């Protein structure tokens, strides 16, 4: 081998001098564009290290902050502050406006609806379903049937204080477990079920309905009303309509009278800001059933 690198005849590129079975390895240089980009990356990395946070300094429990003092956390905080500032006036206006006046201001209504929709998704949809469709045991908020009242003030009170919850002013009522606690016999409950079925305009055994009427007047009418239409003050459901929170067939009604249900809704006052509750009230009221 000579001192000079051998030049390959075919390609004009120098060889590495390695040869296997007559096959020579070319010493093809890296493409120039590749080298340029590689070099540029190194330069950019160096500049980045100076400008931006780069190396951890564990012994000092800190890191090189870079000349720009950039911080993801600070940027986030700044963005959030900016957001809060941009919402501030609308929030203040919402808090200061009476609930029944909000609808009259399209812009404020828009803000309340948007804020309400997002707060509902975060806090309420878990039980009440997306869009407030409800489910078995969880009241639908889209219909016109309300346990505790569907006016703006009723809704706000319910959200603020909750139902059978921990707040001092929480809405509270308790239906007795007529079967479990031995208040009514199985046959009496059967008669009552027939009567309640009859109340909502469905076919029922006439003799049982007659017997059940007395039982209803004695045991149920105090809360559900003599006509069975319920009472908002006590959260007693209307038994004459087509909407049933725990199911409306005979088995479900039997279960309800026997064991009773005590649904719980958390107290949101103190957890949510007052203006958020206002927005939620407007949103829930707008879902279709507001009174």
């Amino acid at each position, binding site marked *: 081998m000579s001192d000079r690198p051998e030049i390959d005849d075919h390609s*004009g590129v120098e060889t590495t001098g390695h040869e296997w079975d007559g096959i020579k390895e070319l010493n093809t240089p890296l493409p120039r564009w590749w080298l340029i980009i590689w070099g540029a990356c190194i330069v950019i990395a160096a500049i980045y290290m100076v400008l931006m946070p780069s190396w951890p300094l564990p012994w000092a429990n800190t890191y090189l902050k870079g000349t720009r003092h950039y911080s993801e956390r600070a940027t986030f905080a700044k963005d959030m502050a900016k957001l809060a500032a941009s919402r501030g006036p609308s929030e203040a206006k919402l808090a200061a406006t009476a609930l029944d006046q909000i*609808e*009259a201001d*399209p812009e404020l*209504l*828009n803000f309340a*609806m948007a804020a309400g929709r997002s707060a509902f998704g975060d806090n309420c949809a878990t039980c009440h*379903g*997306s*869009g407030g*469709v409800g489910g078995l045991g969880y009241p*639908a908020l*889209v*219909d*016109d*049937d309300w346990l505790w009242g569907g006016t703006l003030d009723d809704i706000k009170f319910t959200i603020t204080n909750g139902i059978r919850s921990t707040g001092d002013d929480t809405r509270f009522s308790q239906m007795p477990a007529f079967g479990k606690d031995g208040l009514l016999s199985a046959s009496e409950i059967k008669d009552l079920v027939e009567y309640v079925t009859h109340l909502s305009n469905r076919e029922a055994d006439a003799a049982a309905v007659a017997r059940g009427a007395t039982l209803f007047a004695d045991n149920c009418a105090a809360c559900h009303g003599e006509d069975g239409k319920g009472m908002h003050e006590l959260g007693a459901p*209307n038994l004459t*309509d*087509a*909407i049933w929170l725990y199911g409306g067939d005979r088995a479900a009604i039997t279960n309800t009278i026997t064991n009773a249900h005590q649904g719980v809704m958390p107290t949101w006052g103190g957890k949510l800001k007052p203006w958020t509750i206002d927005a939620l009230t407007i949103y829930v009221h*707008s879902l*279709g*059933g507001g009174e």
Partner: protein
Amino acid sequence: MFIHLVAGNRPAPSAPEAKLGKTTIIGGAPGQSGAPRAAAHGVEKIDVKAVNSAEHHALYQKRVPIYPKLAHGTFRKIKWAFLFVLLGIYYIVPFIRWDRGPGAPDQAVLADFAGRRFYFFFIEIWPQEVYYITGLLMLAAFGLFMATSLFGRVWCGYACPQTVWTDLFIAVERMIEGDRNARIKLARQPLRGKKLLKKIIKHAAWILISFLTGGVFVLYFHDAPTVVRGFFTGHAPMSAYLFAGILTFTTYSLAGAMREQVCTFMCPWPRIQGALTDEDSFEVTYRGWRGEPRGPHKKGESWEGRGDCIDCKQCVAVCPMGIDIRDGDQLECINCALCIDACNAVMKKVGRPTGLIAYDTGRNRELAAQGKPPVYRLFRARTLLYAVLVGGIGLFMLYGLMSRSTLDLNTLRDRSPTYVRLSDGSVRNGYTLKIINKATKARDFEIHLEGLDGAALKAIGLKNDGAGIRVHAEPDKVREIKIYVTVPAAKVRSMKASVPVSIVVSEVSGGTKAVNKTVFLTGNK
């Protein structure tokens, strides 16, 4: 036709040429022979090599610099005119004002991304109407196809930004470093003193032009005067600096450093154009039947028995692509017609008719070689088809723009829940309406329901006066309204599961009206 469509069609380079990359070849540097020779009386033969012709150019070869000589003539003048007009349009358009009334931007051409509007003089396009852009692109494509099938690569030669800016950059280079010979001489000098100064001035001028190019591009996306003021005080949006920077870089590198390589290696258009031209398309072409056999000519010598081409290579020297037009049609040729100017000047000098290199069709070249008269066929199946397409799409778009409504309506049915059964057995459906008022003035609309008798219509925050729901829409805004439609129990029972309904929004003062078809779900099986 002898178009080298893809590199693979090239004849394989012979061994010595394959090594071109290793030796420093200056495109058309005066040869070793020394003193300039004459191709004919008074016409210098330029020792120039068409470095990018298929025969000389190997794949993977390093770029060989080209030093295009300044041409004088008709086509050079046309190209200057194109350069000034096109650059003028580019630089002036963002500053043209167009009054659209209060609240709307007064820039004639503006792609307002923040406000989600595109303005073009009297046209205003919302994101929903982006199909106008589709129409515009189709018009541009078919227009280009038509121009190409008629006159070959006129787009490449005169109007392409790559051509225009490269032309400008070469002009600047010529102003600072001199014409071809001076630039070749300069290239051979060591980089110091006067040469260094010239290079610095040249690159500074290029960067300035590039910056103006990139900077002006940004103005199409923001209010131009505001951004111009804000740009130098640090108040322009970050994206403005970013895109100005990117375009400065691309202009500088594409027009300054890469030039003809962009056309040959990066651009797909030359390949596509191979399919758009035929034997009746005009192309910049060398009339071989007249020129051959070529060779030097001495004063007083007869032109009998020889071609008109004196092989002076002026056509190669002026070529910005580094090719020889006498090799035939080739992928690299952008049809800039500068070789026509160069050749015509020589033909006049030697007293032969001009047009040895000229715009001509492939068919006529063959006919002329056989001594037959030329045939010009501008009306051909493909040109007629393109004309019909351009006209049709143009008319369709014109109709679309003329009949464009200033009112749009989008209806979104509630999906959760799809219907609600109320306590009295009636059924309610909810819809979210988006009333898009594209007019520049506030308007009052009325919402009606059609196709559902006895249904009650209610809207959150609005009153129903019996005739319909009145709604006020602010100018150039979308008004979102939630409406509820309730059908009483007695009616619902006899209805099908899904009933088609129409939601009608009409202007109270008459005029515009928008209708959306949707359905009412009853919950019936």
